[in-house]
């Protein structure tokens, strides 16, 4: 079993990164909501070279999500989605996580809920599956009031506290922040998460947006509004990471948004991220995108004469902004 998960670059090329106490073999992580509905989906990304894989966001109860269309491509490689957080409910999802853990994958559990109590209940159940960290999704832009809540320091703080208290210190808690251009608010909410005990900040989720079909003369998505992901949002995600990094925040930052290649990842590292998550890139470049990026990083390290990726993290700070 262990052998299956080893590939040359994974343990030999010095691409390791640490998110607090959690060491990843490389800084690329499968983002939540992509592929990870089943163990097989998580394994596809893991076999594609990911350093870790985040599960689909799961809640207490089974949810079918929004009606279709649930995704639509927009010009220039952007993607809008309104899946509506379909999930089988945490109980039915546990076997999928366990299966992926058994196969050797480094699995991060993603939790969605309305109030602290829900997060706590889901987190408690996930904690026993062998996951290496918990990611609290406080940021879905197309379901109920989740989005607005994710930028409220009080809400974020309450959720993190409730979860940390329930699951103890063993499993680090990451907080996945909303996609927004309101960087000062983003920083405030992240600081609240840190104060409440979060071990890392994940930024950003999709950006609230809208695409219309001019022939149908209505929204392209079943839900109407949707979340924008893909290359379109990268300069916003990089800015978000940078604003977090240069704030008083001290916990590690994981960058997400629009990554398609190794260069994109290095942008995030320079801006202050210690790892990155990749969603739409899996669609646009295939599920071996993780391995491709690792190979590009090996080349980048050689070109720049560095042994590890570590010196890159926050490298921007050494220059002017």
């Amino acid at each position, binding site marked *: 079993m262990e052998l299956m998960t080893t590939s040359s670059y994974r343990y030999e090329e010095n691409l390791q990164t640490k998110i607090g106490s959690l060491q990843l073999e490389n800084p690329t992580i499968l983002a939540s*909501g*992509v*592929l*990870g*509905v*089943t*163990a*097989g*989906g*998580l*394994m*596809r*990304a893991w*076999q594609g070279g990911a350093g870790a894989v985040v599960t*689909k966001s799961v809640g207490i109860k*089974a*949810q*079918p*999500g929004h*009606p*279709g*269309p*649930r*995704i*639509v*491509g*927009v*010009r*220039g*490689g*952007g*993607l809008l989605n309104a*899946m509506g957080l*379909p*999930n*089988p*409910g945490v109980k*039915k*999802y546990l*076997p999928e996580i366990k*299966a992926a853990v058994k*196969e050797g994958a480094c699995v991060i559990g993603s939790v969605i809920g309305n109030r602290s109590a829900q997060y706590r209940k889901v987190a408690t159940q996930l904690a026993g599956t062998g996951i290496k960290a918990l990611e609290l999704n406080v940021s879905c832009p197309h379901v109920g009031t989740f989005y607005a809540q994710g930028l409220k320091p009080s809400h974020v703080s309450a959720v993190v506290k409730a979860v940390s208290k329930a699951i103890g210190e063993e499993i680090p808690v990451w907080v996945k922040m909303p996609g927004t251009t309101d960087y000062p608010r983003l920083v405030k909410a992240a600081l609240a998460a840190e104060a409440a005990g979060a071990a890392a900040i994940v930024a950003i989720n999709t950006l609230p947006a809208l695409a219309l*079909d001019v*022939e*149908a003369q*209505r929204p*392209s998505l*079943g839900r109407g509004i949707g979340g924008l992901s893909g290359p379109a949002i990268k300069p916003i995600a990089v800015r978000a990471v940078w604003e977090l990094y240069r704030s008083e925040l001290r916990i590690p930052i994981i960058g997400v948004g629009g990554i398609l290649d190794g260069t994109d990842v290095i942008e995030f590292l320079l801006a202050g991220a210690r790892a990155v998550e990749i*969603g*739409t890139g*899996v*669609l646009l470049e295939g*599920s071996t995108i993780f391995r491709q990026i690792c190979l590009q990083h090996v080349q980048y390290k050689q070109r720049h004469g560095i042994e590890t990726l570590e010196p890159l993290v926050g490298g921007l700070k050494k220059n002017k902004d």
Partner: protein
Amino acid sequence: MAPRREERISLAAPVAPPTLRHHVTPILEVSKETPKIKAFVLSAPAIARTATPGQFMMVWIPGVDEIPMSIAAVEPDEGHVEFAAALVGEATRHLHKTKRGDLLGLRGPLGKGFELPISEGKPPPQSLLVVAGGCGAPPILFATDSALHGDWEVDVVLGATTESELLYRRRFNCLTHTLVLTTDDGTAGTQGTAVQGAEVLLKQRRAAGAEGYAACFACGPEPMLKGLVKLAKKYELPLQVSLERYMKCGVGICGHCIIDIKGSRVCTEGPVFPASQLYNTDFGKSTLDATGRRQRL
């Protein structure tokens, strides 16, 4: 003026591919094919030009939902595509209420279709067996038509619950001489399943000392496909089956249609799989519902 350089720059922002956004277009024709199934013809030149048998489209019923539908026929020159939908639930109920001129959105062609084996040295005609059960007939119609154009001999087994539900019976009849019909109630053809119908042909062929089929394509309810997989083993028949799973995206990003621990996606690596790839998968065992809950089949 219109300098060359300006044009080059514009290539940096191409529109999304037809697999990621809908081609919204009026229905050209609706026909009631069986009491439960209606066929729809629309203009979608990009799809008509590039689709191969076994591929599917995501069909958007504006204001309602988007559902996967196999491509039943294409007319590349006129740019027309056809699909046939059984009345099943909410989305198909709305679909059945649409009429000529109403708008639908089509996204595709999606997935990987049937593949005729390359005839190593052997010249055509080679023989293909196709088996369609219930509303599995659409991709089989397309495959039959396409194989015949490639000078293959095609034997067709078409099964349904009852005579009136034999989808595309007339069209298959026009295409091929060997059309074996089966119905559960015996109202047409042989009473029994499409699998039994297939076995009759296989036996005949063996008895006549003829060479085996070079390939077999099948689409229909999963129990039927399961039966065929067994049959294929017995007769050493190279079988490809088209699967159905709940699809949320149709392009391989959501993960809802995955059937094994390797992450094989019905929408992308499928919907057509060689039977040999279905060991150690959920095939014949379980499927996910709209929430992602695993259901025994």
